[in-house]
């Protein structure tokens, strides 16, 4: 049964004299390799040149703050429930008086960890979040020497403070956030 029309029959004819001398075929092969010397190379010189990510790229997670720099996350746990890889763990804590400038609502995540080795970057946490507290940025987790290094703590995930470090904040928002607004 023929599945595609791309198949070509194997040529099993005995070699003719020209082919038996090898040299002719070797020269043909050398012409092929020589042509490749002038082809455009698809390689990108990575640290200097970077391949642009697509607009819908889902990379490393970012924990969001509001405009005053208060954390959005209320440790409701919906992202952890939504996560198909079970990569997210968190511990909730109650906001104490005097911490209003740190956390937006009365409950916050005292501990928030994402295991980047488990994470499949599906973005379901972003979809599940009712507080717009987590979203996937356009960077990826850099290499690390140990497994421990891939468990990202809250400090690693939190976006820079928009008031105290506006430059870093803007950079962390990236193109994707700019597109949303």
């Amino acid at each position: 049964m023929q599945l595609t029309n791309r198949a070509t029959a194997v040529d099993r004819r005995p070699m003719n004299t020209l082919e038996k001398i090898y040299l002719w075929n070797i020269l043909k092969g050398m012409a092929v390799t020589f042509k490749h010397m002038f082809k455009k190379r698809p390689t990108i010189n990575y640290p200097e040149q970077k391949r642009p990510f697509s607009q819908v790229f889902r990379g490393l997670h970012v924990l969001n703050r509001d405009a005053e720099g208060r954390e959005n996350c209320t440790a409701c746990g919906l992202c952890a429930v939504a996560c198909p890889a079970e990569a997210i763990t968190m511990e909730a804590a109650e906001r104490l008086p005097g911490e209003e400038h740190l956390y937006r609502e009365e409950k916050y995540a005292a501990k928030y960890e994402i295991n980047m080795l488990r994470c499949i970057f599906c973005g379901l946490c972003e979809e599940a979040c009712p507080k717009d507290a987590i979203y996937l940025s356009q960077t990826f987790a850099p290499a690390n020497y140990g497994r421990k290094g891939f468990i990202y703590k809250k400090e690693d995930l939190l976006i820079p403070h928009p008031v105290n470090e506006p430059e870093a904040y803007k950079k962390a928002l990236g193109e994707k956030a700019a597109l949303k607004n």
Partner: protein
Amino acid sequence: MYLLALDLWLIVEKAVLIFCIIGLSFFIAMYTTLAERKVAAWMQDRRGPSRAGPWGIFQPLADGGKLFFKEEIIPLASSKFLFILGPAMAMTTALLTSAVIPWGGNLHLFGRDISLQIADINIGILYIFGVVSLGVYGIMIGGWASNNKFSLLAAIRGASQMISYELAMGLALIAVLMLTGTLQMSGIVGNQMTGNNLWHIFLQPLGFIIFFVCALAECNRTPFDLPEAENELNFGYHQEYSSMKLGFYLFAEYINMFISSAVMATLFFGGYDILPFVDETKWGLSENMLTILGFCALMAKTFFFLFVFIWIRWTIPRFRYDQLMALGWKKLIPLALANMIITAAVILWLKK
């Protein structure tokens, strides 16, 4: 009267020349390794080493440094003296060959005529053959002293391959020697520079092809790199070697490539003759200028052959062992013999 009266300046001159040529061999072998990697990359649509310096030009230094600082391992069960002698032999024989190659004409410096050839001995080409045959010992001793089955197998392969292909190489060369009537390297070049500057390639194309194929086999280059067949024999005769001893083997291969390219340029492509069919002395340039240009011409031809060596390596897969032997004994030797007889007949017929 003064049979032993040595000209002191001659010694100085030759010493400087030897230093220059050995330095040049090392330098070119170093950069051939880079060229090999770069050309391989280009032929495979990659970029090749580009991190050490601009366009990766310091890559050979980095490679050499790495080899120097690696741990030197001598296997317990090996024969220690021979284990060290192997790479030393390979390196020495690779460098020795450069002594008789005429790198250029005469230079007039400080009121002296300086020949750009270390030793113009009258059996030049025979000397090259002798030294190249010694190269087998480097491989054989190294492979045997390692006390490793794979190394030994590779060494035996290498030895049988080199000996087989030397025959065809010698026979191909005899045709050239019949044309020149001399074994002296400068004589062979001189023969191509006199008359109408006819290079031997135009008289002996078949001889050149045979010689080239045999040179590939002698240098253990693809498609004849059976002694270091990675997938069959792990790494071949230098499997047990590490650090600079391995470096010596690899380096000797590149020096061999360089020297055999130079020999091919000398024997078939007019040596330091700049252009075929052109009498360069009529250009009205000074002799020193012509010598320098001639040296550059020889280098250009050598580099071209080096490129072809690399080009072939990244194009053709390795021969099987029986194919290698069949090609050597059943095809190249009869061809070379036929070439020799036809040349002899034509020479006799023309002289009549």
